[in-house]
């Protein structure tokens, strides 16, 4: 048996619906239709009345989920694309994120954000939004890169008493497969060393993990041992694991698919520079997308985002220094 990243997300939701009557799912086209990506396929059938189609009202969808959450439910909201969460932005950062701190009443909910670029999707169906939400206090931002994490992190997210933004990468939905769902699970907040190495550390997350691993395999051929760290959650960000890796390798490249100004790569490099300055044998580097909207045409898109090739050459630069 083999299970995809997308199926893992569906299974996690099914398990949560089965085990906790407080869980329900709200989103556009998610009930009978099973969602634009089929992440809720059959869930409306199997859990009648608990998987509901919403109007095209991201602000109210989010506000409704917040109201249900502070009244004892554990809502899951599916945004049809992460890009549309810009319309729920206010409810997320000002209502959900501040609620526990302001009132002492927790706001346990999960917003599922189909994120990241795929060929031909263009500026409004490709965005990675982890940076803007991570900037705000009161939110947990998850960026699973594996089938196992998609499953176990979503399950754990649903049990947290805080608002969680679950950035699931569309590029991994169908491509990424595993033989089974994980028994083990690394808790939210811990990064994972996916590949150990000696010469440089690549810190990354989500789809860029796989591009980075490909780059590491290429460099292996020239005898370079590249350590690859998967952050898994970008807020909180597991600085300790990152520092431990840099302590071993002395070199750091932070890779992300999001826009270059600010964001995860800036935060990672800034933390290592501040807290692990003396561990560094060379200037830390960053690799992000280009600073333009995400192009629609694959010829442009494939150059706009980091790829195994551009990551490989960035690492080669890093190794030269």
């Amino acid at each position, binding site marked *: 048996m083999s299970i995809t990243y997308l199926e893992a997300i569906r299974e996690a939701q099914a398990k949560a619906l089965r085990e906790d009557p407080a869980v329900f799912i709200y989103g556009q086209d998610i009930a009978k239709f099973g969602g634009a990506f089929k992440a809720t396929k059959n869930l409306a059938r199997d859990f009648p009345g*608990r998987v509901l189609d919403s109007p095209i009202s991201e*602000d*109210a969808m989010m506000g409704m989920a917040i109201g249900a959450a502070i*009244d004892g439910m554990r*809502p899951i909201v599916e945004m049809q694309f992460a890009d549309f969460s810009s319309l729920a932005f*206010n409810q997320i950062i000002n*209502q959900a994120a501040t609620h526990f701190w302001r009132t002492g009443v927790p706001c346990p909910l999960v917003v599922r954000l189909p994120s990241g670029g795929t060929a031909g999707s263009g500026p409004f169906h490709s965005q990675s939004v982890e940076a803007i939400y991570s900037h705000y206090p009161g939110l947990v931002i998850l960026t699973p890169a594996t089938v196992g994490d998609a499953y176990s992190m979503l399950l754990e997210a649903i049990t947290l008493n805080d608002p969680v933004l679950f950035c699931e990468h569309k590029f991994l939905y169908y491509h990424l497969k595993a033989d089974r769902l994980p028994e083990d699970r690394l808790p939210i907040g811990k990064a994972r060393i996916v590949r150990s190495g000696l010469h440089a550390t690549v810190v990354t997350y989500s789809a860029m993990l796989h591009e980075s691993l490909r780059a590491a395999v290429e460099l292996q051929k020239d005898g370079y041992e590249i350590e690859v760290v998967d952050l898994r959650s970008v807020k909180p960000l597991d*600085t300790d694991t990152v520092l431990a890796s840099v302590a071993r390798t002395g070199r750091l490249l932070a890779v992300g698919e999001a826009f270059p100004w600010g964001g995860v790569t800036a935060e990672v490099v800034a933390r290592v520079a501040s807290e692990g300055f003396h561990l560094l044998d060379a200037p830390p580097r960053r690799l992000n997308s280009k600073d333009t909207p995400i192009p629609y045409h694959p010829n442009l898109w494939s150059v706009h985002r980091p790829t195994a090739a551009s990551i490989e050459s960035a690492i080669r630069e890093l190794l030269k220094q």
Partner: protein
Amino acid sequence: MMHTATITGGAATPTITSERFIEGFRWMLLSRTVEDKISALYTAGKIVGGVYLGRGQEAFSAALAMALRPGRDIFAPLIRDQAGRMAFGEPVIDTLRTYLGSVLGPMRGRDGNIHRGMPSNGVPAMISHLGSTISVVCGMLMARRFRGEQGIVGAATIGDGGTSTGACHEALNLAAVEKLPLILAVANNQFAYSTPVSRQFACENLADRACGYGMEGHTVDGTDLAACLAVFEKAVSRARSGSGPQLVVGKLLRLCGHGEHDDASYVPAEVRTRPENRDCLHAARQTMLENGWATPRELETMEAEAYETVQDAVSRAQRDPVPDASRETWAALASHWLIEGGKQ
């Protein structure tokens, strides 16, 4: 589906008993007394932050809350709902503690003035962004529905200006699609801060929006306590009995500045003096006397009692400890183990 875009308060039949009217009057009086005190404290520089009052809106606000069941229903007040807050069960001391910055207040000094709330008592703590709380009430109602709780009603209030927000539209539409027992009480006080309604909307009556959502609409003279009690009793009972969301628009005038920093000089004198813009508290007082529901002396006693209550709360709140940064946990997450330790 019934589209009553303009039921006038008067026509909304539930007749109001003297007991009910007197109770409403008492809440209005207490509200006015609290707010006069807060206003004085503000002038004296004793208040932390801004002060926004509900003068002229006490009848509309109190009547809404009185139609609800404290502890069971949901009431989401906004910035002019001192009367409704108290009628729904907020202790006067919570009001004063919040304004005077006591750490014992419901928001513990983390948030202030009109942002106070008690979600576990069915009173969400409003954020400033107008319109954003209506969908939150929808969600609380959905939660009750999921749990099979019957006959719950949730009310939110908003001003004429707040109706221009996308959030207000999305929430009303969602409530109508889910046929939720939601009351949206629109206090049309003719101004949004300084902006007259002529720059806010172009329809004749905001209640005309009801039929566009497939919800029931009601219009009432917001300065007439009896009419307000009647219209909200009717709207709440219709919502409770499954008729779906109800839009209640009250016409009145804000009898103060937007905040106490604002002299409202932009409100033309001829508007202030229009009979329909009368003070709802004076009007209710008149009704009490005319119907012999209270003698002038009894009214004085009520006023004295209200004054006592407020004075007492003020002196208690003034003795309270203020927030101490060294004792503040700075914890924005309930999952404390996920809080990033000053990683800066």
